[in-house]
């Protein structure tokens, strides 16, 4: 019971439905390879900035989700909306906040 309440809390906290485990694997693959092409395999940065918990600290979830989905004008960051929905982007932001596994 305690566990399911906790799970409920997590879900509410990110206001998004958790992607299925298959989808999560796809997103992790995308993060490593496609995001990683510019931000680095270890997310320590490259042409794009580092995406480590400390560099993302202070940046609100909404801002990061919007950056992922819509890109950033005037920078090389493209919109990833064609490849994922808001739930996916929220999930990715949570993964980034946890740091490299």
């Amino acid at each position: 019971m305690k566990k399911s309440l906790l799970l409920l809390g997590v879900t509410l906290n990110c206001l998004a439905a958790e992607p299925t485990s298959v989808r999560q694997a796809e997103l992790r693959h995308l993060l490593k390879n496609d995001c990683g092409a510019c931000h680095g395999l270890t997310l320590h940065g490259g042409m794009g900035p580092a995406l480590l918990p400390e560099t993302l600290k202070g940046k609100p979830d909404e801002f990061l989700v919007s950056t992922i989905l819509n890109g950033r004008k005037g920078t090389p960051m493209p919109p990833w909306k064609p490849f994922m929905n808001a739930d996916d982007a929220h999930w990715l932001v949570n993964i980034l906040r946890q740091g490299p596994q």
Partner: protein
Amino acid sequence: MKNRLPLLLGLLLTFNANAELRATGDLGIIIEREAGSALIIDTTEHKQLARIDKLGDLSHASVVFSRDQRFAYIFGRDGGLSKIDLLQDKLDKRIVQAGNSIGGAISQDGTLIAVSNYTPGGVKIFSADTLELVADIPAEYADGKLSKVVGLVDAPDQRFVFSLFDAGEIWTIDMSTPKKPKIEKFKNVGKFPYDGLITSDGRFYIAGLFGESGLSLLDLWEPEKGIKRILPDYVKPDEQLPVYKMPHLEGWAVADDYIFVPAIGKNEVLVIDKQSWKLVKAIPVAGQPVFVMARPDGRQVWVNFATPENNKLQVIDVKGLDLQSTLTPGHAVLHMEFTPRGENVWVAVRDDDQVLVYDTHTLKEIAHLPAQKPNGVFFTSRANKIGF
């Protein structure tokens, strides 16, 4: 003792006969991005000779070769510079020279290795022999800020040329006197040069622009004439498609009288006339081109693509300037490399954990080698080419 001598001699002879003599002219390196390792391969036998581990973060990597083709220098994402001995299958030397790095070049005379860095932004130059630091050139622009450096190449007269991504500048460094690097700066070359290349004759340096349409050209025979802009009106800002992977210009595609470059923000390969620097044709292709590489004889140009079209390879017929064929080598086709005279092309297919070898005449697969998440293939024949 007397009896043993023939035995000993015999043993020595056998030993000599068994010790395999090896040349390095048909060898190469395959980069395994996640494992941080490199395979030494034989391009004639289509086989792996050795694996060298512990080369750091190779999620982005490139390789140059010593002029005697014995050593490979691998530039890793994490600022690592590793010198591999292809004859002895071992790591000869390794340094970590910066926090974040993108590529490198070897000098005309083979004595210097230059590395282009993102963090701290600049170029560092090392002795090819010892990997000791020879020169440190921060890419300083406005208010002491450091720019990421891209598109670093070697050029004749012991020079290096590179572009400053954040500053929109192109610099040349003359290393004729290693202790006194002579730097020449070209400013306002265009917004966000993302990569650069040099023609195989060492005359023209071209930077591709990400922040605006077109390319920037520097004639190294007449640097005093400054930068010339090519195709400045080619892509209108409102019609530019998002770019899901930065193209590379290293695989310099010069074929016939044309230069073939990836269009930024359009699913096209641009064909530019090398005399007039005007657009001859825009060839529609399957996706956003990443590498556009000419077969060494210039008869074909091979193109790979950014996600989601990165399962394909397309071949352009240079005679007709149109698509000849579309291949589907597998999942995540990241890089390709031609054998010195172009009869084969080796293709790194990351998510299938293999490298495929194609016959470029029949376009049939003739061999494949296992490799863990391969992202780059580099042959020793690069040793003798300007800009590689």
